[in-house]
């Protein structure tokens, strides 16, 4: 047994354990590889799902790398870096979380081998940096192509590629169309800069169980998971004028701890009346401004309902604030926090109202939803997912979200790459050639970097139960030809067809990924690998109360 710790123990002021040198590096790498192994089998169109059961027995079924890792209780510090890496990819790109973890782990594994062969870690790190830079450059220049080349079909294909590995994979024709349309509906052009953005957060994804996945629907408008406050209200309002309120329409109440002391009994009744009247006045003002739909994040007292019913207005209480913000944006309403104006008077102006063609309450499954159609300021879209049970719906939501992210990235960055391991294989061939042009020690690291990228096509084919060695060799041969012979450059789109276990032109087959997602995932993976490789010392302090039988088993 190796005991690095003993010598150092006396120097440290606190009791703890110190691991240094090769031993800690190997530990870290092993941990990282263990993490990658967990998510490995969920990569690719034939990847399978994980079922995660938490301590109270709730089940999550997912294929999304970030979600899997988030749910796992990872203890090892180096493994945690990888978990955070997946999280980062999820936040930045939204898709490709599994592949980034796998690539990072592979980079670590191969890097560790080099270090074991007495190459200094900084050399490996430099080599990785260099290779990463070269790879990104080559990818952007040679392996990507603009969306315009293929038009809308390419968006749909990119969405399909992201879905293919997910539970909605069998219905990807249906869902890709839906996702692309939803994204296009929320297009926003910044009037000042003319920049076009697609805030996919504005797409409200709702879940209702029942029916089947195929009966999920896209609603051109905003769907709100609330119902009208009382049954006397109309369920449909045409030409709606919407007031979005962020306060409760309830009896005015003093804050806790404030008590009013009166000595005239008549005043007591006056106070009671006033409590009623304050809120009534508010509602009158809102209704006077012409509002016929009132959405509030707070409650609506029963006593106010009648005022709305009499005015033929729809009142909805306890809307989520995030929903209200989006509705306000879409309809052009102002989310009002208080009716008080600068002078301290309470006013409600008609300009604060938002407009929509129609608001209707619809029954879906056992639930009811309020749907706002034809919003005036911006178009909005919502997706209602249907499925057999909650676990399935949750996973569908995650998958749809990933695809939305992909479509948005494609639309915003406008460049695509071919999927199915095509990019990785091409970069591998390129970087190997590039490595031979280097005459320093970094050559080795660059070559290993190239080798590490191959893990993606390898895992893809392994998941599909194909001979990965054979397929990857074929794939590399194609890319080599493409890079050697400019006449054969169309071969650079060659990727894996996992259904039949062959190599095909993935550009033709419509397997696309956003270029940005690939670039980011290479960059993130490299950074994470470097972070971990730089570590040569681990000091773990014991907990305050001494505990016997520490897990490090020395």
């Amino acid at each position, binding site marked *: 047994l190796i005991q690095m710790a003993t010598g150092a123990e006396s120097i440290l002021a606190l009791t703890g354990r110190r691991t240094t040198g090769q031993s800690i590096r190997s530990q870290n790498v092993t941990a990282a590889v*263990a993490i990658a192994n967990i998510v490995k*089998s969920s990569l690719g169109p034939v990847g399978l799902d994980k*079922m*995660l059961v938490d301590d109270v027995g*709730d089940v999550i079924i997912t294929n999304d790398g970030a979600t899997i890792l988030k749910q796992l209780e990872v*203890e090892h510090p180096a493994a945690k870096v990888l978990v955070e890496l997946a999280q980062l990819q999820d936040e930045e790109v939204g898709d490709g979380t599994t592949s980034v973890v796998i690539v990072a782990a592979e980079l670590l594994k191969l890097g560790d081998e080099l270090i074991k062969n007495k190459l200094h870690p900084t050399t490996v790190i430099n080599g990785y940096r260099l290779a990463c830079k070269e790879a990104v450059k080559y990818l952007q220049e040679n392996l990507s192509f603009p969306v315009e080349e293929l038009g809308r079909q390419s968006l749909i294909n990119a969405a399909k590629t992201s879905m293919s590995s997910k539970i909605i994979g069998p219905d990807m024709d249906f869902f890709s169309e839906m996702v692309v349309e939803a994204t296009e509906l929320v297009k926003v052009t910044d009037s000042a800069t003319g920049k076009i953005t697609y805030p996919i957060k504005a797409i409200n994804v709702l879940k209702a169980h029942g029916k089947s996945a195929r009966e999920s629907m896209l609603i051109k408008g905003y769907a709100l998971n609330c119902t009208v406050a009382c049954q006397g209200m109309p369920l449909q309002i045409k030409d709606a004028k919407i007031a979005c309120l962020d306060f409760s329409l309830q009896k005015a109440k003093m804050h806790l701890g404030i008590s009013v002391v*009166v*000595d005239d009994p008549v005043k*007591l009744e006056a106070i009671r009346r006033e409590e009623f009247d304050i809120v009534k006045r508010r509602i009158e003002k809102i209704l006077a401004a012409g509002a016929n739909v009132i959405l509030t994040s707070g409650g609506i007292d029963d006593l106010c309902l009648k005022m709305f019913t009499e005015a033929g207005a729809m009142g909805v209480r306890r809307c989520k604030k995030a929903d209200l913000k989006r509705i306000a944006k879409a309809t052009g309403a102002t989310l009002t926090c208080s009716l008080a104006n600068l002078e301290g008077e309470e006013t409600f102006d008609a300009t604060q109202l938002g407009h929509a063609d129609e608001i209707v309450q619809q029954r879906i499954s056992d639930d009811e939803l309020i749907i706002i159609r034809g919003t005036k300021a911006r178009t909005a879209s919502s997706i209602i997912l249907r499925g057999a049970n909650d*676990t399935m719906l949750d996973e569908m939501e995650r998958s749809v979200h990933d695809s939305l992210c992909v479509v948005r990235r494609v639309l915003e960055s406008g460049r695509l790459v071919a999927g199915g391991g095509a990019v990785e294989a091409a970069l591998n061939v390129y970087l190997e050639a590039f490595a031979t042009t280097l005459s320093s020690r970094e050559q080795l690291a660059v070559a290993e970097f190239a080798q590490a990228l191959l893990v993606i096509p390898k895992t893809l084919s392994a998941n599909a139960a194909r001979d990965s060695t054979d397929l990857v060799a074929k794939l590399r041969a194609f890319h080599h030809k493409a890079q050697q012979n400019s006449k054969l450059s169309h071969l650079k789109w060659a990727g894996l067809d996992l259904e039949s276990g062959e190599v095909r032109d993935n550009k033709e087959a419509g397997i696309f990924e956003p270029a940005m997602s690939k670039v980011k995932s290479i960059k993130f993976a490299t950074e994470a690998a470097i972070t971990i490789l730089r570590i040569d010392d681990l000091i773990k302090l014991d907990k305050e109360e001494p505990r016997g039988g520490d897990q490090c088993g020395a």
Partner: protein
Amino acid sequence: MMGAGGQPIIVLSQGTKRESGHHVQIGNITACKTIADVIRTSLGPRAMLKMLMDPMGGIVMTNDGNAILREITVKHPAAKSMIDIARTQDEETGDGTTSVIVLAGEVMSQAQQFLEQKIHPTIIIQAYRAALEEAIKLAEEKYSRAIDVNNDEEIKTVVRSCLGTKMISKWMDLAVDIALNAVKTIRVDKGGVNEIDIKRYCRIEKIPGGTIEDCKVIKGVILNKDVVHAKMRRRIENPRVALLDCNLEYKKGESQTSLEIVREEDISKILEQEEIVIRKQCDEIIALKPDLVFTEKGVSDLAQHFLLKAGITVLRRLKKTDNNRLARVCGARIVNDTCDLREEDIGTAAELFEITKIGDEYYTYVTSSKTTACTVCLRGPSKDVINEVERNLQDALHVVRNVMLNPRLVPGGGALEMALAHALVEKGKSIEGVRQFPYKAVARSLEVIPRTLVQNCGGSTIRQLTALRAKHAQSADNWTWGIDGCSGKIVDMKELGIWDPLSVRIQVLKTAVETSVMLLRIDDIVSGTKKSSGGDGPVKEMPM
């Protein structure tokens, strides 16, 4: 995990258990089969009830799939998903909960053989989905017929076949009439769309005692309440009704107010004031001359006195839902503050208000022949029996609703499943590659419905099933042949008159296949993960 040098490296927390690979898939399948086996005997007209005892000692007696599974605590995550689908089925269609579980269990177990032959799950899944699509298409186009929703006889047939499997089947005609009447009452035509809201407007009031024959539909509302003052009128024809949801008693404000009294006369002033306020409230009510006042809150003795003198009958402490239904029956608007009462808020549509004593308790009836809200009054010898009758009736109500909303029927008694199975096997022959086998497996698993029907009535499974298969193979016109669940013989459903709503059967197929697809995709179970803290959905803060 052992690192270099034999030191164990802890990556995951030690409480985490991880299973993966083939083992997991087989485990999931076994779990699904187990769940299906639990309720297999509750399918069909010869179904047996299950008696479930909860930890508190309460008893549930039922043959409703959802009600049974709801009470069972399971540990296996896949089994939990199975139980979920029974709920989904119940919410979506209200019927077919047993079938969906039995079918899902069978679809899963059919997959086992392929997994053992090392066919990749994604291939099985693709085939399953393809088969599902084909089955739905066939069921919609070929194996169903449209009916006229206004023809009571036809709808009655459907309800009858649904209730045939339930405890209430002995009082079939009664139950069918109740279900049909109730749904017809609450059906509202809203701009060409029929709205049937059973949850809100059809209440089931359970009154233990009497016999099941005494069950009936009341067009209106029944409340388990008596008037607040014994001298108030207990029967009013064509009453003018005021609905309130405020107190008729003195209540202090929301803010903390305290009154400091220094003078002696103030105390009487306060009491006087309370009286004045109540007096004023009552006067406001009396000014409109209602005969009946319902309120969701309390009524003070003083207010009772004033209202009694004005000849007004008062009922207090109603439930909000009851008040809403009353509003629909008598056309009144619920008013929150007596000073807001207007003439148009008074409801006049109710025809009769009456309080009768049933058993030990008083029940208030407010009825109207034109109303769109109704109450089903259930009677029966014991609470458990009534509860089961209620569950049966709920199913029946949903069936009527489904038929009215989607007036297409499919033959029951396993005929549809057999017809689909036959068609899918034929179709499967034209499919290329490995997919053919799982595709045909779906067809085979559909046969579980007729098979279980035969099993449950003690027939000879193999003989009847092969006979039925042969019947369907003979000619495409035999698609209505199925199993008579009482005798276990094969019969033409047209003659027996067993028809199910299409929407229910299709939902069964969809839910069963989709759930198995989801479960088959799993190759790894990690248990003991951390409790998802709040939003485990993927919607995170995205940089915009």
